[in-house]
């Protein structure tokens, strides 16, 4: 059963259709990848799911419940959490407090300070950043700031996690580590929907991949099928990358 589904989803910026009549679904327990050229509408779709932006038309449902009209914090409390392509951290707080915000405000029920601190601590440990708990977040590299965003998202106890370019800026060895992290998150029972340009990660951990172009879904299938898709090669991968990967 789909944990997340969208029907006829549209988003216009003025006259520009950023997301154009897209149907999609993510099943419970899947790792689904979303690829496409820059400007294809991938992050916009994440913004629609998380209600950072309202849909122009169409419907998005989480566990059968309509998300249209809800506020971002309500969607988070329902169990949909996310990270951001351009990190959005609380810049004047240490790492630990950033995760703590997730634990305090991301769940629908009241949580005690002690419990929230435990959740935040566990989330940081899970992503491997316990040692940096007290460090001001602006002193972290961009890559580690993204990991704090993952911890903050995990601290909200999500059922579905949207990852927006988690692998950007990682070298191949670090990509392998991040792939392992995402797999561990899925193994905790959290469904993953990820926007990613690093094809090694898409090929390695996604069960299914969707490709966007100009706001439309142009292909969908297993990573292998997508990597061999002529249109995807033409508009997205390019011959060189295909030869190199």
């Amino acid at each position, binding site marked *: 059963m789909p944990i997340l589904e969208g029907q006829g989803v549209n988003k216009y910026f003025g006259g520009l259709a950023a997301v154009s009549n897209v149907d999609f679904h993510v099943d419970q327990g899947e790792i689904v990848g979303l690829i496409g050229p*820059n400007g294809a509408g991938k992050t916009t779709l994440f913004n629609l799911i998380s209600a950072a932006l309202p849909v122009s038309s169409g419907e998005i449902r989480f566990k059968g419940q309509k998300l249209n009209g809800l506020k971002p914090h309500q969607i988070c409390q329902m169990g949909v959490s996310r990270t951001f392509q*351009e990190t959005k951290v609380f810049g004047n707080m240490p790492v630990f407090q950033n995760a703590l915000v997730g634990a305090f405000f991301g769940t629908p029920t009241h949580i005690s300070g002690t419990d929230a601190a435990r959740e935040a601590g566990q989330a940081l440990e899970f992503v491997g950043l316990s040692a940096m708990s007290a460090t001001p977040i602006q002193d972290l590299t961009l890559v580690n700031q993204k990991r704090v965003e993952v911890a903050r998202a995990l601290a909200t106890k999500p059922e579905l996690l949207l990852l927006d370019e988690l692998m950007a800026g990682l070298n191949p060895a670090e990509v392998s580590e991040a792939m392992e992290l995402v797999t561990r998150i899925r193994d905790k029972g959290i469904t993953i929907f990820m926007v990613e340009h690093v094809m090694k990660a898409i090929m390695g951990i996604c069960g299914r991949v969707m490709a966007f172009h100009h706001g439309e879904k142009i292909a969908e299938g297993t990573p292998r099928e997508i990597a061999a898709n002529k249109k995807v090669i033409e508009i*997205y991968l*390019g011959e060189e990358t295909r030869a190199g990967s």
Partner: protein
Amino acid sequence: MLEVSNLNVFYGKSQALRDVSLRVNEGEIVALVGTNGAGKTTLLNTISGLLHPASGSVEFLGKRIDRLAPHKIMKLGICQIPEGRKLFTDMTVGDNLEMGAYTSEAWKQRKETIEQVYRVFPVLKERRKQSAKKLSGGEGQMVAIGRGLMSNPRLCMFDEPSYGLAPKLFSEVLEVIKGLREQGITIFLVEQNVRQTLTTADRAYVLENGRIIIEGKSEDLLQDKQVKKAYLGL
């Protein structure tokens, strides 16, 4: 052209660069690779004057620059295209580009230079009146590169240009970088996409824990077992 000698740089008490020496010759594409936290961005920030070394020196065209302010270093012909774009999000695409022509010499030529940038990235011409806030990640990266070029640099330092770019677009950016070299601009390239970067660069340095641990021709590094294991994930 650029000579970095025995550079030591600290953040408070923690040392980020240890005795780093490297050289970039005019007309070369030189790459710097290394894990996150190795000190790559710190090195770029020191060259461009955002940080000052505790000891060691940076020379550009035979002149010491390690005590100069960033805007003076830029005037000498070094531009940095920062990681994560750092655009002026309240300004239009066109205004962002013009901000790169901040120095008086570049300002006089800005109309010409901006047309060159538009030839490289036609989509930016279409979007020139749009707010930089509304760009996709990849378009933002194009603006950041274009803004750097607006200063008419002699040495262009790229900090992770692949960041957030679709594979095909990054291949195109590498072609742009090769084109810049053809035009006489020297390139210093910090990048995590090691394989494609080494295929493009003439020479490369590997930085680890603030030290240069390997240097050589790119083709040799691509064959190097240590590099393969640690950076290519092979």
